[in-house]
């Protein structure tokens, strides 16, 4: 907020020596703000930028014993090996399908839930529901998958019985490739939809109440108020989150997928993250898995810029 105010007061930064002088003056004037920024900067420098030095091993045949400097330089060999791997198309499709489910179903559900919560009049009810839907977020994936295994245990699990009756099947849903994606989606929705509403509820709290009063006087119903006031007001927030989500599209999350996968559903369950685990940790192919990780990061970066550009084109605010 403060930077925005400062920008309002100051004319745009000039080029040349004047700019330097102004910077120095700003550094003194806003020294406490700079001091506040310091821990954040140190964090990023130490834990985000410094480790990138180690990403060099993607271009080397890294052997721990020889060290990073002593290992042989191989250029893009690991990237080539990955892109020409026969598993690559399958990994890409599986990753994109799970990402699409998350983006097209789980993400909108978060907005819907936030809108529903926002319409609750009774404060105590609203608070209780909010707290309840936050809880699953704090359970680890191991716990969520264990609960799923109990609920969907073949012949005995209550949800297995329910769905088996509904669809007239006797498949082992935990192992069936057709059930993998629905189960994973259900878990995602159950675990994180509630938590995801926080940021939208914050945005909703910022909507000017007078607009609603004016709309009520004009005779707008509840649905019309949601459609013409609430949604347009939180649209920038939605756009920003969408852009950030898109950047994460190749990060399906390792734990959930790894724990849910088994011999019978691996055709649909193998994603980049589990692949990196198999290649890197199980087989000790550090260079190769770093190359895969780097590839994912670059795709993520491209997607963030792409969505941002699109958002701007459609007359929305981007994030930068």
């Amino acid at each position: 907020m403060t930077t925005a105010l400062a920008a309002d007061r100051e004319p745009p930064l000039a080029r040349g020596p004047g700019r330097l002088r102004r910077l120095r003056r700003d550094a003194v004037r806003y020294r406490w703000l700079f001091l506040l920024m310091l821990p954040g900067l140190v964090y990023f420098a130490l834990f985000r930028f410094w480790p990138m030095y180690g990403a060099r091993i993607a271009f080397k045949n890294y052997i721990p014993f020889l060290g990073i400097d002593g290992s042989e330089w191989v250029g893009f060999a690991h990237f080539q090996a990955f892109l020409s791997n026969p598993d690559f198309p399958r990994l890409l499709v599986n990753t994109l399908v799970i990402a699409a489910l998350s983006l097209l179903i789980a993400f909108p559900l978060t907005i819907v839930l936030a809108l529903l919560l926002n319409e609750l009049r009774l404060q105590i009810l609203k608070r209780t529901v909010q707290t309840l839907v936050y809880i699953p977020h704090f359970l680890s994936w191991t716990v969520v998958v264990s609960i799923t295994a109990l609920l969907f245990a073949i012949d005995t699990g209550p949800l297995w019985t329910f769905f088996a009756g509904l669809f007239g099947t006797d498949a082992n849903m935990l192992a069936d490739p057709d059930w993998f994606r629905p189960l994973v989606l259900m878990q995602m929705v159950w675990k994180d939809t509630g938590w995801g509403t926080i940021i939208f509820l914050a945005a909703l709290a910022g909507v000017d109440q007078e607009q609603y009063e004016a709309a009520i006087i004009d005779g707008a119903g509840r649905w019309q108020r949601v459609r013409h006031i609430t949604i347009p007001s939180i649209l920038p927030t939605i756009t920003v989150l969408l852009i950030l989500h898109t950047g994460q599209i190749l990060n399906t999350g390792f734990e959930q997928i790894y724990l849910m996968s088994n011999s019978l559903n691996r055709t649909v369950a193998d994603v980049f993250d589990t692949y990196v685990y198999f290649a890197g940790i199980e087989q000790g192919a550090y260079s190769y898995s770093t190359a895969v990780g780097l590839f994912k990061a670059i795709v993520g970066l491209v997607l963030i810029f792409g969505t941002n550009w699109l958002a701007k084109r459609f007359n929305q605010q981007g994030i930068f």
Partner: protein
Amino acid sequence: MLKRKRIPVALLAVGSLALGACSDGGDNAEPLESLDIMAPFFSAVPPEEDDPVDKALSDLAGLDLSVQWVPNTDYGSKTNTVLAGDDIPDVMVIQGKDQSFVQTAEAGGFWDLTEYLASGDYPNLVTENPQVQEAASVNGKVYGVYRARDVIRTSVILRQDWLDNLGLAQPQTTADLYEVARAFTEDDPDGDGEDDTYGIINPAWGGIGNGSPYDAIETWYGSGNLWREEGGELVPAFTTDEWLQALQYERDLVANGYVNADYATMDPATWNEPFLNGEGGIIIDVQSRATQLAGLFKEQDPEHYDQYVALVGQLDGPNGTYALPTSGYSGFLAVPRAGVQTEDQLKQVLTALNELNTTEAQNLMNHGIEGDNYTVVDGEAVFDPAKQDFTDQVTGAWAQLGMNVAGYNAYPIQEETEYDKALYQQRLDLQAEDLANAVFNPAAGFVSPTYTTSGAQLDTIIADARIQYIAGQIDDAGLQAALDTWRSSGGDDVVQEINDLYADLN
């Protein structure tokens, strides 16, 4: 602004310190004063430096033992961190021939012990089982003293009371097993008039050649153990006709419902439960599970606990009699060159390891301190229940240093009852019987570069295809397609490399 400028400088300073430390190995040709060992532990807490076992072993070894205990679950990643750092111990427990170990060994990071162990200067380090030492080696080079394990562990465990109810004999062949599994499913073995039982209990199991029930059945059918020699060439077991035959047998068991429905997803940690609860009646697993199950029945039914568990050795297949052995070792103790720099120091280390394999040391590592936490009655170790925590720490930590390559002569543990004693004796008898038919992996000692880099994925292709075939998800054509994928993903290279090594070393 000034503050911001300083950050990167400070970072660079820290970074160069770290780098400097890495390259600073230190040259030291002096005799070793202590023996630094890195080892995994399973106990709740690792032993302290003033541990009585540590003292007693140090006296035996003639060097002060200083063990860096690492929780077993973190051991793999810790190994790599230690190898990349500058504080490398004198002796490291290496848990497997994974990529980073093999690369390090081939880059000269570990002493080649082949000649030293063969010299006979260290009698307690001369293996009584050359096949196992060969399996633990890397293409003919022995980089460590292996930690010996039982060679025969696989067995068939059945509900004896169910066999008795149905008047069935213990199975001797795979065909018998099929019939027993059918009867346990269809003939109401518990006599409650309800159709609530099945035959074989099978948990989810990934990978191939790691002692799964599938591996056992395939070996009994004569597929070989991971690799098989055919006309002077080594072929993967899963390309043999016997393998396919075994898979069809397994598929029939599953299709008829003689196996638990959740065989592809069942948590192996709950393996005992259906057996105890009377849902399933057959487990194909290690012999020690029979002892474990008998113990659990003892809690349920102390009067008749000796009537529930039948332990049967490995079964005859339609093509002959074959038994599945383990690899016979669980990793090895290797000597990094960074810690032990001269040959004199190496000899010091080997002398100490030799002393750590005496019967006295074996008793210390596996039982603890005689007269303190255990006493010897009739030549058998009896533990003091009041010092159980200490005993658990000894068996969960010190026992991990045990190599026992020249034989294990520590006191046997006294069994509680006659039944326990008889069961233990039966295990030993079955081991001796099955060892005569054991099918060893002829390629165990070969490390193929392709397998090292992509073996886990290659194995997963086969392991998944196996389960998919058994589940009826894919047919013969689908299985063939999976084999083709395996071949094109590097399998053909592995076959070529293994056969080159086989030709070179024979």
